[in-house]
Structures are given as structure tokens and as C-alpha cells.
């Protein structure tokens, strides 16, 4: 019983941490890499999954390449 409770609170914490990390990354224009990998595997099974490094570079260029509408 106690174990189960620990387990649940642990997973809640893990989820909160994950959310916070995703939020911080998306504030910098970086969407979730795991979700992207899952997407490529499901929708384009014939294609190789880009590495995190390639994904990161592509997203960085996409966000800043043409400048970014940043508020005043």
C-alpha cells in the first residue's frame, strides 16, 4: 500500500518535472524530441529518425533564421 503510494507520488513528480522541462524548452522554441521521434516512427516508418543534434539544429534555425517576432 505504502509502496504504491510512493510509486504514484514519484510518477506525479516525474510528470511535473517533465512538464517543467518541456515548458522551459518550448520557451526557447524547442518542441519535445521524444514526441517527434514517436511521430516519425509512426507516420514515416520508412525514414531514418533524425538524431537529437540534427533535430536541435533544424529547430534553432527554424526559430531564429528569419528573425523572431519578439514582443517589445
Amino acid at each position, binding site marked *: 500500500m505504502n509502496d504504491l503510494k510512493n510509486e504514484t507520488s514519484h510518477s506525479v513528480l516525474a510528470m511535473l518535472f517533465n512538464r517543467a522541462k518541456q*515548458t522551459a524548452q*518550448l520557451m526557447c522554441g524547442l518542441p519535445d524530441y521524444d514526441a517527434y521521434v514517436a511521430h516519425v516512427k509512426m507516420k514515416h516508418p520508412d525514414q531514418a529518425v533524425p538524431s537529437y543534434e540534427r533535430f536541435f539544429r533544424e529547430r534553432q534555425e527554424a526559430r531564429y533564421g*528569419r528573425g523572431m517576432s519578439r514582443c*517589445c
Partner: protein
Amino acid sequence: MTVAQKGLWAGVSVLGASAMAVLALSRGETVNAAWMVIAASCVFALGYRFYSRFIADKVLELDATRPTPAVRINDGLDYVPTNTFVLFGHHFAAIAGAGPLIGPVLAAQMGYLPGIIWILAGAVFAGCVQDFVVLVLSTRRGGDSLGKMIKDELGREAGAFALVGLLAIMIILLAVLGLVVVKALANSPWGTFTVAMTIPIAVLMGVYMRFIRPGKIGEASVIGLVLLFAALSGGASVAADPVWSMWFTLTGPQLAWALIVYGFVAAVLPVWLVLAPRDYLSTFLKVGTIALLAIGIVFTLPELHMPAVTKFIDGSGPVWSGNLFPFLFITIACGAVSGFHALIASGTTPKMIEKETDARVLGYGAMVVESFVAVMALTAACALDPSVYFALNSPAAAIGVDVESAATAISSWGFVVTPDTLAQVARDVGETSILSRTGGAPTLAVGIAQILADFIGGNALMAFWYHFAILFEALFILTTLDAGTRVARFMIQDVLGSISAPLGRTTSLVGNILATGLCVAGWGWFLYQGVVDPFGGINTLWPLFGISNQMLAAIALTLATVLLVKTGKARYVLVTLAPLVWLLICTLTAAAQKIWHADPAIGFLAHAQMLAKAVAEERVMAPAKSLEQMQRLIFNDQIDAALCALFAVVVIAVAGFGLRTALRAHSGLATAEVARA
């Protein structure tokens, strides 16, 4: 709604009204900032609960089952269904900038009451509505940008006008933000050193994330933040050292040139080297500082020393000239209603919304939080002793250049102060002088330093917090300068491309350098004129910026109004039409007064005429030092007047195209109804 809920909301209404009454009715004694926080919380809670729900349910008819672009397209990159909280963070980080921190500080010269009323009313009925409606419209059009929606819905000509307006706004925005940095760093070796250090720190982070640990934003940001704090404390030693401090003590014009060169170089370098890493730093620092300030205000609850209303509502204030109407309403743009948000709300956020109903908290909700930031900035400025506030914000032309003349001038306005007090405040924050540090950032920094020092560290940390606040503002202003120059560069290249196709190619080095150079020359010109302007520059540039930002909001609300009519929602048209009309009245009155007002302190042409008359009599008017200088001031006035006229023409044109489209759609719908009958 249950009885308990009704009771709760009735209680919130009564509490909010009481807090507003305390703020409005207090005369002659200080009011606690708690009333400001309570009034804002209640008004925003009511606005969100009732007005945004009305807009969501009745006006926009949000439907959780209607597939959003993120769900339909879902490419894992741009279009990704995203958790509401995560997306809220993204959206808020994108809309929060320097604007809501500066406008309210400048508006404080009329007292805290006009500012707080406009922030609350403007946000609830205009700003939040604009963000919310544009976000939904863009989501329903596959995440289209504001420019594309205007072109598609109002026609190509309207799109062209909007584009010209947008380019002009970018130029003036970059100039005014650059001016804020120059004013904050002039003759401040501590501040200049710290801000200069952000460049090598960003480069180091950029290299780290590119080659050493690719893509590790978190690690690089922690390293960057540690180095940033090291630079911040190192700045104190630099300022204390006779040799080093000389290297980092720069005058206004020197700093202006440094920014111009920096802006050009940074905008042509690859994004991973400077722009991206500094954006990560400034984003985290921004969100962290806003949270820290909110906690600081709630824990220390400072007294507001600024009167509710000062005598400067008659337009005679030293910070900016002009009457409460229309100038208060353009001085506070961001925080009440900001046209720039329409670009963000039609940018990346609509491509990531999971359910249409999420748009309420993202559009309306995020703007509520941004308005809270504006309320905090107003609180920090009004918590200062008014004499210190006016010493910081009045140009040298009004208070002179030493503490004696400043104390005499400010005391004569009714805010009695001794020269020693002004000198002591400068020593407390680790500067040689606080006089005429216009532009809002230093005022906010002193306010933040007082609040945070009260909260953590006491007087010993005052100078540290002051320079921390300067760094935090300068950091994201520099990011905006760099990113904005790039945005404007591509706009200019689009135009160049229609003249000579090779120059329009984004890979063309010549085209790149030419377009970037044109853009930097544009904002650099206004920046330099602002720096050498004896009236401080903010006086001239901030109203221009306010007018342009509200003009953009008017364009966005025109689009929203037309689309409400087109989709058969004409009975709810006041939701967007009322704020639109108000913004048109404010911006057009302000533009007309800036051009034609007979008072040379307000009207550009009257000012030019006054100078021209003196030139004809070969009389040099202080603070100009030669007839040649006066000729240049006349030319500046004419340029500023022309820019005002351009903004007015753009907004009238787009509103006209909007009216045409709305009338056509309305009669079309009416005909269709008759045919059906």
C-alpha cells in the same frame, strides 16, 4: 452557477470595487501597494471569468471537437498538439518583453491612478480581447500570420499598407529600445561591463551547444547564468578600479555607435553563435525576475509615495509632454493593449493548440499575466520617492546637470528634496549620478532594487539588485534588437527582390548586407538623434512608438471586426469594434497633436517653426550650440512629423478597407437571407 459561486463572485466584485475606491479616493497620504494588487487581482479575475467566457461561448463559439491545425497537420515540428500549461509558458515568454515594464513607469508622472485605471480597463476590454480573438482566428485559418489574414480577408492593398506600417514600427521599436539601453548604461561602468560580458558569455554557450554538448540547452543556460552573476559581481570591482572603469565609462553617443555596430554584426552572424544562446538566457532570466518581483512586492507590500494624481495631468510634465488624453493611452501600450501581440498570437502558438477551447487561457489569460507585470512596474515606480522618480526621468533641459539644480527644480514642482538625498540614492545603487536616466529602465531598476533589497539582503545588496535589474532589461532588449533587425532585414529583402531579383535571394551575401545595413541605418538614425536630443529623446521617440504599437492593435482589431461581420456575428461586433474605435480615437488624436499642436513641446511642426524663426534671426537657442545644429533639429522634427503622418495614413487606410469589406459582407449576408426567405 450555484449560490455559493454567486456569493464568491459578488464578494470578489465588492472587494475589487473597495480597493479601487481606496486607490481613487486617497488624497495627501500614502496608499499601500496591497490595494493595487487587490484591485488588479479582482478586476482580472472578473474579466477572465465572465468576459472571456462570454467571448468564448457566444462570440467565437469555441468548440473543443473542431480539429485544430496541430491535430490535423501534426508534423512533429511546427504543428504539435501541446499541453495547455506548456504552451502557456511558451506563449507568455513570447509576449512578455520590455514594453510593459517601461510604459507604466513613464506614465507614473501623472500619478498612479490614471495608469492603473487604463491598464486594467485596457487589458480587460482591449488587450486581452485582441490577443484572444486573433489567436482563435489564426487557429481557424491553419495558423496563418496576421499579414496573410489581412491580405486574404481585406485585400492586397490593405496587406501592402499593413506591411509598410509593420516595417516602420520595427524601425521605431528598435530605436526606442536601443535608447533605453543607452540611457541606462551611459557613464555606468558597472552596467556597461556586465552587459558587454553577455556577448562573450553567449558565444561561449553557443559554441558549447553546437560542438561540445550539442543541443544541451539546460546545461549551457546554467553555465551562462553562473557566468552572468560572476560578471555582475565583477562589475562592482571594474567600477571601483580607476583604469578598468575608464574603459567601460562610455558617453551616450559612444554607446549608440557601439549598439549600431553590434546590431549589424549580430544580425549577419549565424543564429547559433549569439542570438539563440542569448535568447535562452534572457528568457529564463526574464521569467525568473518577473516571478521574483511578484514575490517581492507581495512580501514587502511597499507604500506608494507617488500621489494618486499629480499636477502634470495638464500636459506640463517633464517626462513626456501632452495631456492625459490622448497621451496616457499611448504611453502605456504594452500592458494595456499591444499590437505586437497580434503577431505572436498569429505566430507559432496557434500551430500548437490542442483544443480550440484552450485559446481562452492562452489568449486572454496570458495577456492578463502580462498586464500584471505592467501593474508591478507601475507599483515599483510609484513606491519610489516622487523626487527620486523625477530626478531619474526628467531631461537635463528641465533639471540641469548637477544635484543642486535638480533638487531646486524638483522642489519647485512640490516634491521637496535636498541635493544630498539625490546624491545618496546614486551612491546606494553604485552609480555616480541618477539624474536624467530617462527611458524607464533605471527607474524600474531603482524600484526593483528597493523592493528586492527590502526582501533579500537589505541596503548592502541595493547596488547589486540595481545592476541586476539593468542587466535583465538590457539582456532582452539586445535580443530584441538582434532578432528584430533580422525580421526587418527579410522584409527589406522582399522589397529589394522586386527591384533586383538576385538581391531578394536570402542566400545572397550582398543582399543580406545591404538589407541589414539599411535596417540598422534606419533605427540607428533615430537612436542617435534620440541620444543627442537635449530633451532626452524618450520624449520624442516613446510617443512615436506608442502610436505605432496601438496602430498595429487597431489593424488587428479591424481584421477581427470584419471577420465577426463576415461570419454572421454582427450582433456581437462591439466586442472588437468598441476597443477599435477607442484606439482609432487615441492614435489619430495623438498623431495629429504630435504633428500640428501649437505648443512646441508637443507639436513637431511648431517646434521646427520655432527653431526656424530663431535661425532666420541668426539666434542660437539653448541647448543647441550652433545654427547648423539647429538646422539639424529642424530636419529631425520634419522626419518625426512625416513618420507620424505615415502611421496615421496606414491606420486610416486599413480601417477604410476593413469598413468596405464589412459593408460588402453585411449586404451580402442580408441578400442571402432575403434569397433564402
